[in-house]
């Protein structure tokens, strides 16, 4: 068997999903996780005691809240005692990594029902403190210069705009689009439109990027239930379910300046290639995508890394409106991290919740015509990446 050959694994279905209200919440990490997990059990029609594996995607509950060991706490709070639990931390891509782990557990036969719950509690910290918790993923040689993830975005955005002669407004249009989509998502942190002028005149955070080029700091949680495809009908009856047809991860350099080309995220390219190979699909087959728009520039880099646009050309597709809700490839119908919010460990799970709802036809006023959907979850500044492809179950 070659690596990545999943032909001898079980096919895996997603049969239920949930997410809490994202935003500034009074709840702490245990309560956020319990809220999403409880709703997911109901949505999937799975009894607490039937969960074999319970995974928690979370980056930094210890650093943010002084609370560790949350998977065990969640198992107890949800009545899943006896289940195998583990925490999955891959910084901002913890959610995608949790989905990969949950998929492995069911595909391998180790579990017949795995629930994945991602969550983060952040807003009780100041912006400076939260930024520092996230920046603690950087190398000492970077950290001592006071670099933040937003600074990496500023450095990369300037290089991209200068090298490809792209207009600054093209980045702002990503923010405008994702805010517009967010108005249709009742769980989003921001449910208000912003216009181009507001984005372009907002305060500079990391030159040339401004406040509206960045996602907010967010509390929230999201969950998914995974079972073997052969068992899916037992749970969903005649309702729809989704099949995980491709899922793969890859890493890039830890030290960002060591990358050969600052505008290429090798982890995006490699994880995307692997996920498409596994699904036996091409970028052209994707109907809708959730990309990790922690910063507007990341939407360009992922569109290009995943093959939705040529290198240096994503801005033209955005300018042409092709990634809007009614475009050829709608991107971030959920509102993206930009408008929905970015509770670190929850984000990758919430991306998968959105594409699950799109392929099973439960996306409400955000619904687009979609049989194949992709999510790309990025940790660090492209340091580790998970790409997931879901298809409508037959």
């Amino acid at each position, binding site marked *: 068997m070659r690596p990545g050959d999943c032909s001898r694994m079980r096919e895996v279905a997603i049969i239920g999903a949930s997410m809490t209200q994202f935003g500034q919440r009074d709840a702490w990490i245990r309560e956020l996780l319990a809220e999403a997990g409880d709703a997911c059990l109901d949505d999937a029609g799975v009894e607490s005691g039937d969960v074999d594996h319970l995974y928690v995607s979370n980056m930094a509950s210890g*650093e943010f809240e002084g609370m560790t060991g949350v998977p065990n706490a969640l198992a107890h709070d949800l009545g899943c005692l006896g289940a195998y639990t583990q925490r999955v931390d891959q910084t901002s891509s913890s959610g995608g990594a949790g989905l990969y782990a949950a998929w492995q557990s069911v595909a391998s036969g180790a579990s017949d029902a795995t629930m994945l719950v991602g969550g983060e509690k952040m807003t009780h910290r100041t*912006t*400076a*403190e939260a*930024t*520092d*918790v996230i*920046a*603690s993923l950087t*190398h*000492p*040689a*970077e*950290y*001592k*210069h*006071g*670099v*933040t993830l*937003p*600074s990496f975005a*500023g*450095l*990369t955005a*300037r*290089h991209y705009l*200068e090298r490809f002669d792209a207009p600054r407004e093209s980045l702002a249009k990503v923010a405008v689009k994702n805010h517009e989509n967010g108005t249709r998502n009742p769980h989003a942190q921001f449910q208000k439109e912003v216009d181009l002028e507001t984005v372009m005149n907002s*305060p*500079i*955070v*990391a*030159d*040339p*990027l401004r406040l509206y080029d960045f996602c907010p700091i967010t509390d929230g949680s999201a969950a998914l239930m995974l079972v073997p495809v052969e068992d899916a009908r037992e749970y969903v009856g005649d309702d729809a379910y989704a099949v995980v047809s491709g899922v793969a991860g890859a890493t890039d*350099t830890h*030290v*960002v*300046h*060591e990358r050969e080309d*600052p505008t290429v995220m090798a982890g995006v390219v490699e994880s995307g290639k692997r996920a498409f190979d596994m699904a036996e699909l091409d970028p052209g087959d994707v109907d809708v995508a959730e990309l990790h728009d922690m910063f507007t520039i990341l939407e360009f880099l992922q569109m290009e890394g995943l093959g939705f646009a040529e290198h240096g050309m994503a801005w033209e597709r955005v300018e042409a409106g092709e990634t809007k809700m009614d475009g050829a490839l709608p991107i971030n119908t959920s509102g993206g991290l930009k408008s929905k919010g970015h509770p670190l460990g929850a984000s990758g799970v919430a991306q998968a919740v959105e594409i699950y709802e799109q392929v099973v036809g439960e996306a409400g006023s955000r619904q687009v015509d979609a049989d194949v959907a992709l999510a790309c979850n990025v940790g660090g500044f492209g340091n580790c990446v998970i790409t997931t492809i879901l298809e409508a179950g037959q």
Partner: protein
Amino acid sequence: MTEESLRADGGRSHDDRRVREGHLSGDDLTAYVCPNGHATFPGHQRCPECGEHQMESLDLSETEATVVTWTTSTATPPGVREPNHLAIVEFDLEAALEGSDTFTPGTVDGPIRTLAQLTTGDVESGDRVEPTYVDELREPGAGIREPDSQSWDGYRFQPVED
């Protein structure tokens, strides 16, 4: 370590494997080079390109560089100056090799870059800059990182006067 395990391990002992001070932490502006001529700053336990150990070092603290891209951060974490001017700069590798006793020009693969603070926000991509030593780039202990786990001094880059 037994003789047998030494052989199975490519003849390396624990002492060889112990990380040299500063190698992984990027304390000094020093690049590390493997036997195949791949160079990185900071160093790594094994070369990211070929997996060999990086046995040689190349001082870059007096080497000029070119600004690849830059930003000014106005939302900085605890203990960091505000605004914080930052750049990714690329070293003039051939100049560094010419000044080296260990290497001859053309024997080390670049590019070698670093992220660093700038002394000024008045720069453009493509500008020539040079390192200048600062004894505290960021206040130790103000942020989340354990103060003793890394160094806090280092080099900012300033424009080269024509």
